[in-house]
């Protein structure tokens, strides 16, 4: 039996060691995924905690489908982020400064960029939803392409092409916002 599947089966029986392993393996990655999607580290902490609490409540209904358990967690995280952003857009907020400062300290043009999380999150929001998803999964979770493909339900070739176009678009946004 696949070790991940075995672990999840144990977690479904509320085996604490299995839960601990799944929790420790995924907590930081889910946090980074959420932080990148919403651009706010403090609120990402609360949402991450909610994701794991929801996972705990729903684990009994989880069905193994030949994709990593993390894919299920990302789905919960994704829904959590969507809910959060929907609620947030209903509230009057101060518009964030859209300028993205891309500093280049290196004498070689375009060799070194520096962006902050919030700036990256704002730039990502200008991409298509699929582009956002592929980059959020890759950058925040440091996932290999095969796993990203599994989470997104696509083949690897499609994900490769998607991430290429996503990084190109992200680059353009960064450069345009910098006023070049």
């Amino acid at each position, binding site marked *: 039996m696949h070790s991940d599947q075995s672990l999840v089966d144990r977690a479904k029986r509320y085996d604490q060691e299995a839960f601990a392993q799944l929790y420790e393996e995924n907590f930081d990655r889910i*946090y980074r995924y959420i932080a990148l999607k919403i651009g706010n580290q403090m609120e990402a902490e609360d949402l991450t905690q909610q994701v794991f609490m929801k996972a705990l409540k729903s684990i009994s209904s989880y069905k193994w489908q030949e994709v990593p358990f993390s894919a299920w967690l990302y789905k919960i995280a994704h829904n959590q982020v969507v809910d959060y952003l929907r609620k947030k857009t209903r509230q009057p907020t101060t518009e964030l400064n859209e300028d993205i400062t891309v500093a280049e300290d290196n004498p070689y043009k375009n060799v070194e960029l520096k962006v902050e999380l919030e700036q990256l999150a704002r730039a990502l929001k200008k991409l298509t939803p699929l582009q956002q998803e592929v980059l959020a999964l890759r950058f925040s979770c440091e996932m290999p392409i095969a796993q990203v493909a599994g989470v997104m339900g696509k083949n690897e070739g499609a994900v490769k092409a998607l991430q290429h176009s996503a990084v190109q678009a992200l680059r353009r946004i960064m450069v345009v916002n910098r006023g070049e």
Partner: protein
Amino acid sequence: MNREEMNNNFDSVFEKCMEDIVCHNRSLQDCLEAYPEHAGELKPLLVTVAASREAAGVSPREDFKARARYEFYSAVAEIREKQNIPWFRHSMGWVQVGISAVVALMITGGGVIAASGSSLPGQPLYSVKIFAEQIQVGLTFSETARTQLYANLADRRVDEIITLSEDGNIGPVMEANERLGSSFAEMAGTYSGFPGTQQPPALVDSFVDVASAPEGEKVRASVPESFVIEDGDSDTVAGLKNKAVAGYLAIVQRINGAAGTMKAALEETLAVYVQGYENAIKLAREQA
């Protein structure tokens, strides 16, 4: 090769480089050198990848993680209880040890903290240890006891720093230095208007207790003047000074065996440690 094949080929090269940078910490330059024929096209994209990956590399705060972990494991335990699943049906793993440590600590107010005491920064149980320590501080109401506790926690940080430095990994040592500084700052923060000391300590040769010496024998060593026990020092102050000297000598010994950036990091540890203990000793004197 037609255009579609070329595109597919570039997508694969780009993916390989992205994987190397994102998943394997490979440098941008290495990737460009591996594919010189694509370097011109790859460079702006990989610069974007590297910068984005760095920006996305955030971590939740340690104290938040500890609290979230405790709440999560408590929720697991609660569900098990509701379902009447025996707590010890499975082997006693570190999770149970962690939860038991924190829960028992909350009930008893101290003494159980050692259950997670050997974990180091970066290890899963470490945040449980820090959380347990925070609870212990919260449950310590006497100013004298709290000063003693902070000093004990600082010594624990120093033990961690020395162990980490032996592994040669500079990052965790720097992080542990910050935690050490925070521990002393929290201690000073419990007393308003306490003056900090910024000057390097004046050293004197003195006969001091060291762990390696036979019991009852003192060893001559060069230590900060403020750490030398004087007539009239209370038991609390003398105890703090003994601890300060032990930690000071342990750090100095480790500095002598280190080189380069690790040596510099440990020198910073020493500076923070000396300043923190000088504050602790002054506080203990004021309380006496």
